[in-house]
């Protein structure tokens, strides 16, 4: 097990003081902080072997290509993929999900076919289906969670029919913290309709717990670098190789080409046919370093640490009067995120008062407006945790909330 206080020392941002006070960062669900080794890895590319990949036959280009592809191998291993060729680098989770929508769904889901989307999805896994569905005539069915923030698997008996072509689901809610039992869900979906594919938005689980895409049995899995200690600008889409090979690219351009004639083009194989244009080379190399860092901590330990922090936060936040927490109330079932409201103060006012002590939380609907509408709440405040979150950070949060209590009493 690691010590979060020591982990903090690896993150240069914690040496910064604002108004003489340190930063208490409780918004890792939005984006994570970056350890020095990730910054060094990217800087090394920009200072020692800056070159484009896949073309130069000179040393530094070969080095850049090797480093870039090494990250693909690391990511593949990190999520239990059978082959690095199943890893596509995109810009972010949204782009990964759009890639599935445009390159697979548009050709394979026809007018009148159904898709199932849960109500707890982030907009990135809701809006592409809703918008594309308007053009294609898809029927979108919504799978709703109960008041405790849990999905009932028996609902699938009704939701998954012969005409359901895709279930797209988050593995962990960015608001409720609910960890969905993906393996069980995939098994059930496939038993009801073996032809229905399952796409998993793992943006909130890849950074926080061990994941194994093969064990899940899913068809596509998407996540982002910036939420798992890596830089912004890089996302990942994993897909079963045969599936990726059957799909047409959705972005055309450089890097993805085998040959081009005046009237035809031949594309590379997956994953490269989906990586048009010069990618974020430094970013992908940074992600590789982030994966190394997380692997060294051990993903089981990361999860264990967050469970401890969540259990502590759930207990301490009960001290605050008029405070309601959403989602599962048991750390075992909850990712490192607690969304809450206070009877006397609006979420924005809570966030603003906490900011006076550099306590960074988020307020709003957290890109999950359908979920907030379904719960009948305009906005929640949200504190979220990661490898560098300590019990002292939670104490600071609770002190801040007591301050809100006093101001708005």
């Amino acid at each position: 097990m690691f010590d979060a206080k020591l982990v903090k020392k690896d993150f240069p941002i914690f040496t910064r003081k604002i108004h003489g006070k340190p930063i208490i960062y409780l918004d890792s669900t939005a984006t994570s902080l970056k350890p020095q080794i990730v910054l060094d890895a990217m800087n090394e590319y920009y200072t020692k072997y800056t070159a484009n990949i896949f073309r130069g036959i000179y040393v530094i280009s070969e080095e850049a290509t090797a480093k870039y592809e090494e990250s693909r191998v690391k990511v593949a291993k990190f999520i239990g993929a059978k082959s690095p060729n199943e890893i596509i680098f995109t810009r972010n989770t949204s782009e990964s999900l759009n890639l599935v929508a445009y390159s697979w769904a548009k050709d394979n889901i026809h007018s009148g076919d159904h898709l199932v989307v849960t109500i707890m999805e982030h907009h990135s896994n809701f809006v592409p289906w809703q918008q594309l569905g308007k053009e294609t005539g898809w029927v979108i069915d919504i799978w709703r969670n109960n008041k405790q923030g849990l999905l009932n698997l028996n609902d699938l008996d009704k939701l998954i029919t012969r005409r359901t072509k895709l279930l797209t689901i988050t593995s962990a809610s960015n608001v409720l913290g609910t960890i969905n039992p993906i393996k069980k869900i995939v098994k059930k979906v496939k038993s009801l309709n073996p032809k229905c594919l399952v796409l998993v938005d793992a943006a909130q689980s890849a950074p926080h717990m061990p994941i194994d895409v093969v064990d899940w049995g899913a068809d596509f899995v998407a996540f982002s670098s910036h939420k798992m200690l890596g830089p912004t600008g890089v996302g990942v889409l994993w897909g079963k190789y045969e599936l990726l090979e059957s799909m047409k690219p959705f972005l055309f351009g450089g890097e993805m080409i085998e040959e081009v004639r005046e009237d035809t083009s031949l594309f590379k194989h997956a994953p490269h046919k989906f990586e048009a244009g010069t990618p974020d080379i430094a970013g992908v190399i940074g992600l590789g370093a982030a994966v190394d860092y997380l692997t060294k901590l051990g993903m089981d330990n990361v999860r264990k640490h967050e469970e401890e922090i969540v259990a502590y936060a759930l207990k301490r936040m009960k001290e605050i009067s008029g405070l309601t927490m959403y989602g599962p109330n048991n750390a075992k079932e909850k990712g490192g995120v607690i969304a809450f409201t206070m009877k006397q103060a609006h979420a924005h006012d809570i966030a603003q008062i906490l900011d006076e002590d550099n306590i960074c939380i988020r307020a709003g609907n957290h890109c999950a407006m359908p979920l907030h509408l379904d719960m009948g709440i305009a906005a929640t405040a949200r504190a979220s945790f990661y490898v560098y979150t300590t019990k002292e950070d939670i104490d600071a949060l609770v002190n801040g909330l007591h301050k809100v209590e006093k101001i708005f009493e």
Partner: protein
Amino acid sequence: MDIYREIILDHYKNPRNFGHLKRPTAKVEEGNVTCGDRIIMEINVKKNTLADIRFSGEGCAISQSTASMLTEKVKGMSLSAVKKLDAKYIFSMLGTTLTPSRTKCALLSLEVLQKAVAKIHP
């Protein structure tokens, strides 16, 4: 920070001119959906002057207390004067500046009021 000064909280907890007019000359409702702020402004106009005003809605302390303070300020003001009010006026009324993310909370009520005025005095 001084944005939660006594006066703002006082307006938040005891909003002035809160409620509805029986027969408003104009009524406009606008929200800031992502924040969950919502303001409804109802006005009565007599001889190009704001004779009476009520607001309702829900949201953060900044959005609601600004609306309350604004209704006190504009009662009796000419429509053309209301149309000229700007962000600077709101900040001086609040006696503080705000961070960019909170500015929209503070400006919502003025925006809604000016839309209501524009209905009568385009």
